[in-house]
């Protein structure tokens, strides 16, 4: 039994906060976080509520397009991307990046041309696509800069 050539499109509202984040990337190549009035933590990506404080957040904070590798892995096994039905381009660098000015980690690809440089704590910088659509993939990937 299998599902054949079936397609199952769906819609997902990212909300006002997520929309602002993606629009700023598209229009200004600018990362934005949101700050909790209670604990002071800056969240990237932004969302409306700080879970631990259970408090609404309204203070937008500009954060850098550079930061540090919080952690990473290099994916080496072949698997189908359930979003596209196509095989993911393995190997690829899966990074958790703490952007300067943020307290949480932002997930994206990290370039692995020189694997020896991919280390926890390495400095990284975002590379943007020339043509941007307001998608997370407007950020091409992060590159190691030290």
């Amino acid at each position, binding site marked *: 039994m299998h599902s054949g050539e079936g397609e199952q499109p769906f819609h997902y509202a990212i909300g006002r906060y997520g929309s602002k984040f993606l629009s700023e990337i598209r229009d200004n190549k600018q990362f934005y976080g949101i700050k909790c009035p209670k604990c002071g933590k800056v969240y990237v990506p932004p969302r409306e509520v700080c*879970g631990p404080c259970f408090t609404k957040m309204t203070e937008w904070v500009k954060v850098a397009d550079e930061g540090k590798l919080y952690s990473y*892995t290099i994916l*080496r*096994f072949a698997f189908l991307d359930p*979003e596209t039905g196509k095989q993911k381009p393995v190997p690829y660098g*899966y990074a958790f990046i703490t952007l300067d000015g943020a307290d949480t980690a932002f997930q994206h690809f990290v370039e692995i041309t020189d694997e020896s440089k991919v280390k926890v704590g390495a400095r990284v910088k975002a590379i943007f696509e020339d043509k941007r659509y307001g998608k997370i993939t407007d950020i091409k990937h992060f590159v190691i800069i030290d």
Partner: protein
Amino acid sequence: MGKKRTAIVATGQTHHRSSRLDVNGIELINEAVVRCLEDGDLTIEDIDAVVIGNMDHFEGINYVDTWSIDGSGGFMKPTFKLTTGGTTGSTVGQSGFYLTASGMFDKVLCIGWEKNSESDTTAAITTAFDPIWDRLVFAGAIGGLAVEATKYMSEYGATEEDAAHVAVRDRTHALNNPYAQLRKPITLEDVMSSPMLSDPIKLLDVCPRTDGACAVVWANEDYAEKICSRPAWYHAGSVKHPFNLLGDTDLTTLVSMELASKEAYKKAGIKEPLKEIDVMELYLPYSCAGLSWIEAIGLCERGGAPRLVRDGVTNMDGELPINPSGGVIATNCIGATALLRMAEAAIQVMGKGGDRQVPDVETAVATGFGGCFWSDISVLRSKKP
């Protein structure tokens, strides 16, 4: 309604394989249920309610509770479905405690099951994560655990070889368990030379995908000792959830397990876990978890686990044997996995472990783990609370 003391009085599990083409899901469930009832010398008429769980989206079956009613024994009984990702089995198991302890039911049958061979596990797991912020780079369980391992190793200087010791231990223990899926001995070299899946996780560092099911019966104090001469009494439990988005998570230790275990130990009056606990069945889906998470659960200080494991403290003949069953690295039928931990802990308390029995178990601990790094823990004892 008052709180009753309650215990696991019977357990049953299927033989586990990567693919059980000989049975469909309902029949697989039934295999575990029948063995469980036999273990307690019970019939389905003795059961007052049924709780069942698996992973959402895995088998493509919606309303698993109704679909499986013939196999589960839930026909014309109150039947509940619970599904909480990786902890599904332990949530199902703990619910048996709540339902009997509350006095609502006297005897409750809890079932966890999975036919992983019928699903695309990575694709299904991905749907548990945020479509925008998590999914771009996400690669199912292995990628998520790999970033945790990288962080832990970088923080404490632990090595891939340190982690490999955990895989070798659990796979060695699995040789004693007739129900385990992977029952072939492996060496440190085998682990180290197995293909790299996602740095630093190699093929033999990580759990397989398994078809299997597990069932336990809970009975309150009015019935427990009549059903089982040495029931596994529930003394304490705790569940902790951290953040939702993966990037929010502190990966240097399993914070949810650290908090859950502290809370459970306090409730159970355990001050020195390494000394006071006789055996642990831990949800360790990959080898590095066997280092980081046993620190979180309070067996040693942070960074101390590699030495503890290397010294054999957690082996069958060590001070605190971990995973006499072979654990998750040997068998992983996901919706059943955490219930298997609870059942195996109960088996140890009951003294029914056969070749995998640790002598004189008075206190056993079982855990569950879920993908966004949440945890739960249960403390079972031979002594009535």
